[in-house]
C-alpha cells in the first residue's frame, strides 16, 4: 500500500512493513513484562536473546540499547519501552534519549509546552532547519 506519512520527520510509523520486520524483536521485548523473564534476561542477555530469532542488527541494537535503531529495525515503542522499564528507565527519560536531549532539557521542554508543531511537520522543514 502507498503511504503518505513517510515525510513526517523523526517518526517510525509501525505499519505492516515495520511489524513484519520487527516481530521477533517486539516479542522479545514483550516477554520482559514478566518478572521471571526480566531476571533471566538480566542474568545473561545474549543467552536470553538466543530464544528469539532476531537479525544480527536487531541483537546488536538491543544489547547496545540503541533505542532509535530498534525502532528503525521494526521495534514499536510500546514494546521497546518494556526493555527500558527492565533497565529502570522511565518513559520520559527514554523519550529524552531518543531525541538526543539531556533528560533535564527534555523535561524542561515538556514543562514549557512541548516540542512545537511549527517546523516539525515534514522532513523538508528539518532539512531547512
Amino acid at each position, binding site marked *: 500500500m502507498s503511504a*503518505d*506519512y513517510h515525510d*513526517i*520527520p*523523526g*517518526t*517510525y*510509523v*509501525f*505499519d*505492516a512493513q515495520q*511489524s513484519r520486520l520487527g*516481530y521477533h524483536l*517486539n*516479542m522479545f*521485548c*514483550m516477554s*520482559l*513484562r*514478566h*518478572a521471571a523473564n*526480566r531476571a533471566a534476561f538480566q542474568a545473561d542477555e545474549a543467552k536470553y536473546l538466543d530464544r528469539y530469532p532476531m537479525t544480527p542488527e536487531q541483537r546488536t541494537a538491543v544489547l547496545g540499547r540503541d533505542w*532509535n535503531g530498534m*525502532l528503525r529495525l521494526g521495534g*514499536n*515503542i*510500546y*514494546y521497546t*519501552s*518494556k526493555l527500558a*522499564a*527492565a533497565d529502570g528507565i522511565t*518513559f*520520559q527519560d527514554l*523519550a*529524552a534519549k*531518543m*531525541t*538526543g536531549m539531556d533528560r533535564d532539557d*527534555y523535561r524542561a*521542554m*515538556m*514543562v514549557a*509546552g*512541548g*516540542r*512545537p*508543531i511549527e517546523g*516539525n*511537520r*515534514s522532513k523538508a522543514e528539518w532539512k531547512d532547519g
Partner: protein
Amino acid sequence: MARIVGGYATSHVPAIGVAMDKGLTDEPYWQPVFAGYEASRKWMAELNPDVAIVVYNDHATAFSLEIIPTFALGCAASYQPADEGWGARPVPVVEGHPDLAWHIAQSVILDEFDLTIVNSLEVDHGLTVPLSLAFGQPDAWPCPVIPLAVNVVQFPPPTGHRCLMLGRAIRKAVESYEQPLRVAVFGTGGMSHQLQAERAGLINREFDNRFLDLLIDDPDTAAAISHTEYLREAGSEGIELVMWLVMRGALDDQVTAVHRHYHVPASNTAVGHLVLENAAAAPAVAEVA
C-alpha cells in the same frame, strides 16, 4: 430500557496513575493536572452510573503481535490489573458486566461491526488510569465496567469514522437492553503526544483544542480527520484520539459539554478531558463548576 447518561473523555497517561498511586497529586508539577478532574469526579459521583463502558487501548500488555483485534469487547466477569513490566497498579479488580456486554456484542455484530469477543483479559493503564481519575481511589470500583479495546498500536487503527459509527451502534445496543441501566461511556487516550524517536515530545495545542471543539459540536468533521493528519499534527501516539469518537457516537447528536480541561504536560503528553451529557435529556446531574 437502558440508556447512555454521560460521556467522559480523558487522556490515560501512565504517569498520572503513578502520581495517584504514590500520593504525588499535590506536587506543583501535578497539581494543575489533577485540579481539572475535581469537578468531574463530583459529577461522576452524582451521576453514579450502573455500568461504565470504557473505550481504551492495550499497550502491548494483554495483546501482543500474535493477535491484533481491531475492536475487542470484554465479556468477562472480571479483569485483573496487569503487570506492564514494573508491577501491577495497586487498584481494585475491575468487575465486568457480562450480560450487557454480550448483549452489546450480539447487537453490534448483527449491525455489521465484527467485534472480537474477549473472555479473559488483563487490563493495563489505558483502562485503569481513567477509572482512577473518574472515581478516585476507592477500595472497590463503584460500578461494573465493560472494556472495549481498540487497536491503535499496529498501523492502521480503525478510522475515526468507523469509531464514531461503532459508538452509534453501541448506543442502539444499550437502548435495546431490557434492564433500566444508566450507562456512562468513556473515551480515553490522547491528546497530542509522540513517545518515539527524534520527534518525541511533540505537542499541538491548536490541534487538540480544535479536536475538543469538533468533538462537542461537529463529530462528523472530527471523524473525517485522516490517519496521516493525526500522525503529523498530533504525534504518532496522538492517533489514540480516534477512541474518543466511539464515546461521542454513543451519545446523542446534540450534546452539552459540562466540563472541559486541558493541560500540558503530563510526562510526554497533552492532557485533555471532556465531560458530555445529551442535550435533550434533563441534566444527568446538577451543573458542575
